[in-house]
């Protein structure tokens, strides 16, 4: 039986602090922008810049999410974070446990796009007790596996087009459901993308003569 998105929403609400998710969303928006600017400043608009951007951004995102999680873990016992190497030992990823949910993150091309194959993800999905848990309210399983999906639909934009928490099925080939984190956190994208400048009007452009002097002048 597939869980409904409402059930998933409840699960996230119960087990993951909203503030924690909010900070991750904000961080993702920041990092997309800053990584874009940094690569541009170092490599301009060359092909190498395009090649490097996703790697650089991923490193920043993994580092940043770990730091956010570590900070929250200091005040919240239900949050734990660890950095794991993959089987080939050529790449690392974070595994964050929030209550009953175990989270990793991935950048994908579209909001419904399946994450690329990775042995660790397949194992985590296989071990996830999601389907059992949502069928049986008394379930006392280990964890439910969720992946923070993010990505830019237009490669030229410097902010993510979507940020959602996706729950893969046990085969890790399809998703059981999603929670849109931008909605969930009530994150105002327009506020982020346009931190407006407070333009100060020039009210002193023409110093005003005193009225007595003005009259004298006119006379």
């Amino acid at each position: 039986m597939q869980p409904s998105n409402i059930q998933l929403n409840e699960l996230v609400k119960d087990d993951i602090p909203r503030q924690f998710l909010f900070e991750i969303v904000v961080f993702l928006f920041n990092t997309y922008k800053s990584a874009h600017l940094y690569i541009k400043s170092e490599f301009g608009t060359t092909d190498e810049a395009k090649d490097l951007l996703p790697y650089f951004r991923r490193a920043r995102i993994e580092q940043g999410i770990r730091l956010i999680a570590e900070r929250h873990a200091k005040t919240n016992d239900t949050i734990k974070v660890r950095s794991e190497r993959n089987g080939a030992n050529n790449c690392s990823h974070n595994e964050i446990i929030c209550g009953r949910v175990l989270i990793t993150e991935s950048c994908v091309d579209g909001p419904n796009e399946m994450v690329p194959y990775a042995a660790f993800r397949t194992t985590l999905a296989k071990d996830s007790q999601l389907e059992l848990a949502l069928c049986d309210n008394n379930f006392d399983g280990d964890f439910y596996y969720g992946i923070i999906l993010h990505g830019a639909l237009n490669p030229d934009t410097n902010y993510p087009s979507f940020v959602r928490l996706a729950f893969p099925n046990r085969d890790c080939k399809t998703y059981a459901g999603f929670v849109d984190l931008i909605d969930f956190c009530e994150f105002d994208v327009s506020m982020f993308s346009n931190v407006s400048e407070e333009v100060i009007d020039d009210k002193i452009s023409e110093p005003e003569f005193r009225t007595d002097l003005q009259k004298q002048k006119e006379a």
Partner: protein
Amino acid sequence: MKLGTPNFNGERLREAREARCLKATVLAEKLGISKQAISQYENGIQTPKPEVMVRMSEILNLPFNFFLRESYPIEENIIFFRSLSSTTKITRVEARPKLKWLKEIVDYLRNFFVFPEINMPSITLDKNPIYLTAEEIEQIATQCRKYWGLGNGVISDTVLLLENNGVIVTRSELSSMKMDAFSEWSLNDNTPYVFLIANKNCAVRSRYDLAHELGHLVLHKSIRKTDFSLKSEFNLIEEQADRFAGAFLLPSETFTLDFSIPTLDVLRMLKEKWKTSIAMMIKRCENLGIIDKNYAKNLWISYYRRDWRKKEPLDDILPIEQPRFIRRCFETLIKENVQTKNDLIARLPFANDMEQLACLPKGYLSEQQVEKEPMPQFRTPPNSVIPNKQGKASIIPLNYHKVQSEQVNLLAEKVEI
């Protein structure tokens, strides 16, 4: 009868000497007189001989009539010198007369202009401001922005914001590199003054200095000299003004959106947007709890390794905000033919200092004023070459008048011979 200078004002001599950072002994040596003589001039016991006056005027770079000018009565309030602990006494001594001259200039301009109304947020406290907590200061800074109708975005021009609201701001040089800025709520005209020191030519620093001084003007308006005396108390009010500046320039609500995990590269890129230094942003992140002490420590280590303490990226690129109100008053007086440059020089005999204090371009007041009255024109003789066919004004060399006066002197000498 001793030959002296009638109407000589010793107080003006002391002002001039202090403004030029000269000790009495040094000035005496330069003038070839005793230290006691300087003391007697300053205390009005004796007046200098004309030849001493001429030398004095040259050394102190102030016109003769400056020393004859009546004293300007000053009711001095507490002056907040930025980085007071590191500010040497001689710097503070130099700063005071300059602030006094600025007040005299403002006082003179008030004869002609309606100054912007003073529209400063006032806070009511039930305790000595020294005991304000960091959270309270954050709230006051937020209220301050709201009071002026500002949102949580980047303030485009902090100097203009303050000038619009009646604060007199100047940006002028001082001989000391140790001081950044100072401010005072003047008791003479109940007007806030901010004096930014122009020596460190850095836009983000200047903005920060102004916000820091605004912090003093808002938070510490009610403080009197007697309220604090210990160094720790001085440091405390400086820290409060720092906190205010951070909260005023980088509101937590929007600033945190940019700074979940700040790295030096991220901060470097955001410096242009927020118009604040990287150092200030690190400190603000720490104050807001976005980063912990260890992370901040690592950032500072990298910051020093990159040698950004001396000079940060973009420091010489971002434009410096300039005060404009006093400058515009002068320009308007001249443009509207209310006063000539010579009138102003005669009434306000502060020489080059006046241009600096009024933020006028160097040499503006000594430049020859273009006559507005149409001049009678000679008839053009037939077959003569008309210079400057495009009808543009010919440029008279700057030394033209000097040459002319030298020729006149030569002529006079010849006549005498």
